[in-house]
């Protein structure tokens, strides 16, 4: 970052963005981004009732069970994080 735009609105913008969970940065790896995508997806499924109902019909489960499952899956949506190469 240049010295000149250390104080301008853009740097603040980045700072502001960093406060949200789910935003990314240049050093994000595939796994981390995928976790965010998965969690966002599950949150979205749970948040939209018609989608939840659709999945419930497709899987022949109750809507509540579906919701519970999705929420459980948000814990480790992609499994354990891979070993870091650089450590």
């Amino acid at each position, binding site marked *: 970052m240049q010295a000149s735009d250390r104080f301008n609105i853009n740097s603040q913008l980045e700072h502001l963005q960093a406060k949200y969970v789910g935003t990314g940065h240049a050093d994000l790896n595939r796994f981390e981004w995928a976790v965010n995508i998965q969690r*966002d997806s599950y949150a979205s499924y749970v948040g939209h009732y018609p989608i939840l109902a659709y*999945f419930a019909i497709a899987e022949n489960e109750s809507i509540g069970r579906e919701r519970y499952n999705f929420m459980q899956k948000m814990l480790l949506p992609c499994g354990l994080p891979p070993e870091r190469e650089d450590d």
Partner: protein
Amino acid sequence: MDPEIAKTQEERRKMEQQLASMTSLTFDTDLYGGNDRDAYVTSIPVNEDEDNLDSLMDNEVARKLASYTAPKSLLKEMPRGSDENDDVSGFKKPQRIIDREDDYRKRRLNRVISPERHDAFAAGEKTPDPSVRTYADVMREEALKREKEETLKLIAKKKKQQEEDEAASDKPLPADSSAAAAPKRRNRWDQSQDDGGAGAAAAKKAKTASTSDWDLPDTTPGRWDATPTPGRLGDATPSASVGRRNRWDETPTPGRVVDSDATPAAGGVTPGATPAGMTWDATPKLAGLATPTPKKQRSRWDETPATMGSATPMAGATPAAVTPGVTPVGGLDLATPTPGAINLRGAITPEQYNLLRWEKDIEDRNRPLTDEELDAMFPQEGYKILDPPASYVPIRTPARKLLATPTPMGTPLYAIPEENRGQQFDVPKEAPGGLPFMKPEDYQYFGALLNEEEEEKMTSDELKERKIMKLLLKVKNGTPPQRKTALRQLTDKAREFGAGPLFNRILPLLMQPTLEDQERHLLVKVIDRVLYKLDELVRPYVHKILVVIEPLLIDEDYYARVEGREIISNLSKAAGLATMIAAMRPDIDNIDEYVRNTTARAFSVVASALGIPALLPFLKAVCQSKKSWQARHTGIKIVQQIAILIGCAVLPHLRSLVEIIEHGLLDENQKVRTITALSLAALAEAAAPYGIESFDSVLKPLWKGIRSHRGKVLAAFLKAIGFIIPLMDALYASYYTKEVMVILIREFQSPDEEMKKIVLKVVKQCVSTEGVEADYIRSDILPEFFRNFWVRRMALDRRNYRQLVDTTVEIANKTGVADIVGRIVEDLKDESEPYRRMVMETIEKVVTNLGASDIDARLEELLIDGILYAFQEQTSDDANVMLNGFGAVVNALGQRVKPYLPQICGTIKWRLNNKSAKVRQQAADLISRIAVVMKQCQEEQLMGHLGVVLYEYLGEEYPEVLGSILGALKAIVNVIGMTKMTPPIKDLLPRLTPILKNRHEKVQENCIDLVGRIADRGAEFVPAREWMRICFELLEMLKAHKKGIRRATVNTFGYIAKAIGPQDVLATLLNNLKVQERQNRVCTTVAIAIVAETCSPFTVLPALMNEYRVPELNVQNGVLKSLSFLFEYIGEMGKDYIYAVTPLLEDALMDRDLVHRQTAASAVKHMALGVAGLGCEDALVHLLNYVWPNIFETSPHVINAVMEAIEGMRVALGAAIVLNYCLQGLFHPARKVREVYWKIYNSLYIGAQDALVAAYPTLEDEQNNVYSRPELMMFV
């Protein structure tokens, strides 16, 4: 001649003797009045005519001149250029803090920056080194100091006693301690002076500003030594009036100084010679008392020496009686504006240096001629040298000597050592190494920086100090960039420099007497930054810092107070509660009230920084201190300050705070009782409207208190009750109000100003409380209230005035308009103008609040009559009160004012013709206020008439008046409409065109409003050519400083374009795009956009786009900017034009010029936002392709515009499309690229998180990790 003079002197002597005998008596000042004697003529002029001569001359000249000059009213009206320039400059001149400080605040300079203290936390278990000061040491020192003070007080008391005895036994001796009883001026910071031993304390505290005319300026700078020597205390003269700085005050009356050296000669005159043991400065006082200079005698400091010439030989001729009161010689000598007295008080400013240099020069030229010189001047023969008379005493020298008495600071005339040959006179020495300019007073702090040669030999510590000094000098005197880097260096290296060296350099600077506001602000900023870095290292220096920062808490400048609070708050966070308490505890019962006061305030800041609960146990202990009332007083004061500082945040701790202080109401010390009541008042005020239950325990002592106390304490108790009553519920409030009202009504008559204010405040609060009924107020309060408070005297003091108006308005809210207005309406015809103004303001507020429906026909008549009278009779400059009052009453009465309108208009017309500009302006302003009511009363004919009158006055010269006249015309046009307006619009507008050229803001604003109004509503009455002419004038107005004017101008373009079609206006505006000024171009683009909006875009766009072909940067940018505004204004309408402008924007987005791309991007943004959801996606995607390559721009404005355009696209196209653009770069091998793409991704994500779920790419699973989202594949 001789017998004549002898006779007058004989008379004089007799009178003096008489007076001498009188002064030894003690007068009952209440009976005889303190100052009356000053008016007596105590000496008779030597030459009886002489004294009157000049006054007669004056009168004569004045009388004769009067016939030649213009009338005073005209002279007053003359615009005074120089004055205005001062006001207009806009910037405050740098101002020294000390100049605006009063005596009390100046006491900060008495404080000593204490040496650092032991830091128990850092030391751990170790026993502190005996060389460092521990808490115990400090406490011991404080105790010692207190004891010393007590002893000194006792000694002083004894001495005084002795003297009084002496005086009683030796009656004719004029020396008297009556001088010591000089009236003490008390100010509200300080209440510690009215207890025992006040005289001595007063002398010591250097606060006594004697009002006596004949006390000598003090030569002992009391500031430098905090503890007084008993000798000085002993003489019990109010000579320690350090506070008196005004040079003019110090101009001695002639008699006094002559006395100082003439005492031996005048010995015969003043019986009872100098008593032994008196210091020298007491002597003149004695003589001075014996021959008090009459008040009538004018101070002659500015008289020419000619008088002196004539007076001196007289004294020489009558050596037997050197009449000290008469010969003005010494006085004249002294009276040359000598800053000597000021110099005694510390460092001197450059102006004073100059003054001194100049004065020295003059003195050299006017020195007495030597014998050789006289020999050379006069012929040798025909002259004889006479011996001076035996009794001749040279006068001048001792008087001079007196001035030149060396002070502890050294003689000011001897500023720079002579040996230093390298010294450049007048020109300050160039500071080495790019250091900023040093002011003379900076030398004592930064002087070491000037000799560079020793730098090699310095130790590392010395080098460090030097570095700090350099940085500080840069911060203090440097240019902004210098200051910035120096500040940053100081901050970054704070820990490296260490707390000790830093604070040892910074803090003395803050105590510098010549410090200016800006410098103090900068230094305080340094402390703040450094504090943050040093953190716990600051502990040993806490007290030091407090000594210099605490005075900020009582500064009159709001920002200084805030700054002080911030520093102390940061300090307490860095040092911790324990250290803060340890540092400030010794000051809590300091002997100096100033120290206690500032400490209390600092403690309240600590409480707000670290939380009240943390401080509660300590406060409790302090408030219950048995050892000294000062500690209790300060403790309770801390509670008060906490309440004031943190407001409603006291609520959770209210009960504990009240419990801590409640016993203070019954304290044996009166001051503790007072401060307790005041603290309760502050707590109640902060807690309002909650928390009454916390005050339960204090209600009883308060109620008992108001019955048993008098004076100050009673005032404080009443104040507390006044603030507690509004917290109660209706029933109790009503009961308690009735209880307290008895006392309040009794105190209505109190002559004490403070009591008056408090009583008014309490009445206001009681009356506004829910449970107090109107009937009760009417019957019990109103009669006494009006009898005691609605008197002329109350209008003279501004604070009383305000308080009384507020209270009366509050009462009116309960009792209704008629009651109050009925009582005071007669006073509108009072002969005192301030009083009339107070009545008017009250009526205005009451009527605005409550309307005029209560007012019956008779009262209405009285009211209008009174208002007209008051309006016509006003003479003062502050005309707004009358104007507002008139406007408010007329508007409230509405249609009922119809019968009076002819009379009112008559007055207005008469005043419009007045020769005073203020009166004319006010009359015009009044028209604009009552125009609406005139319309309601259907007085259109009258308004038409006024319109014509105003039209005739459009030639007014004074811009303020012209502005008001235009405002009045606007008001009339607004209410009667364009068609009925007289004069007809077609006549009016051409008259306004030239006025548009006027550069005065008020004229411009009113004129453009009026023109805009006409263009909006009545454009058809004026030929198109006239409108075009106006258009050209309007272009100039786009330069106006005031935003309101520019906005009105731009709107007017819109109206005119609507009236005469856009083509011509547009051509004018497009031409204006070529001008150089940016502001002008910006306003033009806005105007184009507005024209486009009012006349639909298709009328404007072709011409605008054609203009883009002009190969000129400014024009093209102007066109783009207009497009941007245009699409912002037209919003959805843009969907029809988007395809038309796309090629233009394509071109602009590919231009080399950054500004082109920036402006085009913002146009794209507005366009996208306007057409979202209207089916223009194809064009938008096309534009996005042109916008996208700009994402790597670094210029902040461009990148902002580009990012916003992309955001706009997200709204218009949907997040999925933009995400697709994003994906290519999120995992780009180049970090720079990734950073930008992630930024875009993030704003996309924050804006439309949910919408992205459907659009995320499909990721392949890896061995351990599942990345796919099988749910999205489900299908029923």
